[in-house]
């Protein structure tokens, strides 16, 4: 038995990232000095998660118009909905305040002559965000949140349809952590690494999304019995080739359009794309444009940076250094001067995210951020139905969640639940399962290279999962095409892995145990993805999921697809939930 650490918190926050830190800060403001706030973080809070490399822009800021206009933009960018407009509005209403708070916390904002923030496009502002994460973490520290670094949460504890805490293991100390929360917030990011990345071997994590976000938010919500939404909307990044760095810096900074090998700025010129909105078409359509041009043998596709001002290149490189320094190195190593040659772009491995141009996540009640499991709150990428929140929106969303939790604590007399020793023992056994599995299976013999004769490493299982998803669930090499016969195979294999193969999953050490739990969680997310895509028998977001068996949009599916997992049958039961329009107007147009 591992040494046990018991943690009790009024507000238990699982994940010290963009949303979690700000939730702690706002919970302190709303809940007062006596509130006990705990953040459990699997890495080190000052440098963890999506923000660890920095960011050069905040992509959600109301530079002009009203918050409603942003909601209409987000709706438009998701091909006209469905999105949770109530949630989006709540974020848009406060996002500018949040940015101000972060500026006061030391975040360097670029400014125009008149002192206003330097915008980049309609809804973006430029920043020097290489220390974005330390600055964000400082807010949690300022809020006197108790921070537990290097603790990997493996499962939520649910009792009587309410979440009463969570358990996990210390990545460094190997201790078993048992956390009880009067309310619990899960904000542990989205899911990368479900599909096979384009680069292999020593570059296989050279991908767009943060590779250490393994979908634990979704998997734990699912296992806790929460209602989940929109897992069929996966985000396909079309980014600079090989490094998968963002392209907004190029398209706006260098005025660079996407061009095919014939030199055509196809999004602007081809009527097929113009009908969707041309070069400012919704994100899934721009991904679709890239795919369609390549499949039609008009690839490779580039960002044509050669028409821009060469004097801007240095500035562009500077911006990348704040966010994705590898691109600058890549250009240096490969003799690329973007003012002289166009920058090649490529589609990367799909990702399941909730706050970027995707909207998978847990379904929440109203704008409370409380899931269908009582006292369990979500935010950031874990929150479903509300795309295009990005960093500033996730900060804001975190604040709203923190406030909502503090208010719920005031309104209700929640108390710590008693944990039956048998339950805790069972959870511990499950948490350390792969580690103990290794010890057990090592006795059955090792090959000469030191690997197990009768076990599977987390890496091997991840490779298998990625192969299945790649080949049967529309990976990059399959041009993101999906149809039911393929899905049936994917479904079968994912099920087999989850139900039969996990018994062989072995972890040699605590780092391996972390990788093992990553793959366990990813498999749960794969199951959600396969079932959701299968259920939505239409093609609404063509660049993301192109169903070759249902290539058109179908009005019957103009709604959310939600699901619940049945632990008895291991079935994910999908159902439709109507979309509610709050901001009036044509859903396929932006209001400004």
């Amino acid at each position, binding site marked *: 038995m591992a040494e046990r650490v018991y943690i009790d918190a009024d507000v238990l926050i699982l994940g010290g990232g963009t949303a979690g830190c700000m939730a702690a800060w706002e919970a302190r403001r709303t809940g007062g000095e006596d509130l006990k706030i705990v953040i459990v973080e699997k890495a*080190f809070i*000052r440098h963890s998660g999506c923000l660890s490399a920095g960011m050069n822009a905040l992509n959600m800021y109301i530079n002009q118009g009203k918050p409603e206009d942003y909601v209409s933009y987000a709706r438009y960018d998701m091909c006209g909905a469905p999105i949770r407009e109530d949630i989006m509005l709540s974020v848009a209403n406060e996002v500018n305040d949040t940015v101000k708070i972060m500026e006061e916390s030391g975040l360097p904002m670029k400014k125009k002559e008149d002192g206003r923030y330097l915008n980049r496009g309609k809804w973006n502002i430029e920043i020097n965000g290489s220390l974005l994460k330390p600055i964000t973490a400082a807010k949690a520290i300022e809020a006197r949140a108790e921070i537990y670094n290097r603790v990997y949460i493996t499962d939520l504890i649910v009792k009587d349809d309410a979440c009463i805490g969570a358990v996990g293991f210390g990545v460094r100390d190997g201790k078993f952590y048992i956390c009880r929360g009067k309310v619990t917030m899960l904000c542990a990011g989205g899911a990368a690494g479900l599909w096979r990345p384009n680069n292999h071997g020593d570059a296989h994590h050279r991908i767009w999304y943060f590779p*250490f976000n393994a979908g634990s938010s979704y998997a734990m919500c699912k296992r806790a019995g929460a209602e989940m939404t929109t897992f069929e909307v996966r985000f396909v990044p079309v980014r600079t080739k090989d490094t998968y760095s963002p392209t907004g810096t190029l398209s706006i900074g260098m005025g660079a359009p996407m061009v095919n090998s014939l030199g055509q700025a196809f999004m602007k010129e081809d009527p097929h794309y113009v009908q969707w909105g041309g070069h400012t078409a919704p994100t899934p359509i721009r991904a679709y444009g890239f795919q369609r041009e390549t499949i039609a043998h008009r690839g490779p596709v580039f960002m044509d940076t050669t028409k821009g001002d060469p004097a801007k290149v240095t500035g562009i*490189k500077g911006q990348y*250094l704040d966010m994705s320094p*590898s691109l600058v*190195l*890549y250009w240096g190593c490969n003799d690329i001067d973007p003012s002289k040659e166009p920058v090649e772009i490529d589609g990367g491995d799909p990702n399941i995210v909730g706050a970027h141009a995707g909207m998978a996540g847990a379904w929440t009640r109203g704008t409370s951020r409380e899931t269908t499991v009582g006292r369990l709150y979500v935010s950031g990428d874990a929150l479903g139905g509300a795309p295009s929140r990005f960093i500033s929106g996730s900060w804001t969303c975190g604040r709203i969640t923190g406030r909502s939790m503090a208010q719920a604590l005031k309104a209700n007399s929640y108390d710590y639940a008693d944990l039956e020793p048998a339950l805790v023992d069972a959870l511990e056994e499950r948490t350390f399962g792969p580690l103990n599995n290794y010890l057990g299976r090592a006795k059955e013999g090792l090959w000469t290279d030191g690997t197990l004769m009768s076990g599977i490493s987390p890496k091997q299982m991840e490779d298998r999962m990625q192969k299945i998803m790649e080949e049967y669930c529309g990976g990059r090499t399959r041009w993101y095409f999906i149809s039911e016969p393929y899905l049936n195979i994917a479904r079968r294999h994912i099920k087999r892995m989850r139900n039969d193969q996990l018994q062989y999953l072995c972890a040699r050490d605590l780092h391996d145990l972390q990788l093992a739990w990553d793959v366990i969680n990813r498999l749960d997310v794969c199951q959600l993805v396969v079932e959701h895509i299968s259920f939505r028998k239409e093609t609404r977001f063509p660049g993301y999921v192109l169903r070759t068996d249902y290539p058109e949009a179908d009005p019957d599916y103009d709604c959310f697809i939600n699901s619940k997992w049945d632990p008895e049958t291991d079935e994910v039961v999908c159902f439709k939930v109507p979309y509610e329009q709050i901001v009036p107007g044509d859903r396929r147009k932006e209001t400004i």
Partner: protein
Amino acid sequence: MPPKADPTKCDGCQGESEPLCEQVCPGNLMTLDKETRKAYCREPGDCWDCMTCTKACPRQAIQTTLQYQIAYFPGKLIPLVGTNSVTWTSIDCHGRVERFVMKTLVSPDDEDED
């Protein structure tokens, strides 16, 4: 971009069990070689090249290189972290040097006069 630590500069953060790079790595990848007492990346392919370790290293012992499968030798990109700025030196494959001084934090006096 797997981080590589220069053995002549890395002092394992003075023989502590957990050097700073290990402390900060978001992917739990940096670790200390028990024999040499120097830091290294345990799984280069798992690195996302966020460069947190490279920037955090108190001795600037960690450099980053791109994987050969995507980039030619011997380009370099080296950050030098100051109090409120980070300075990047990019040395491309032909030895051409470009430098970038980027602001990282606003100090209370940043908006002051000349």
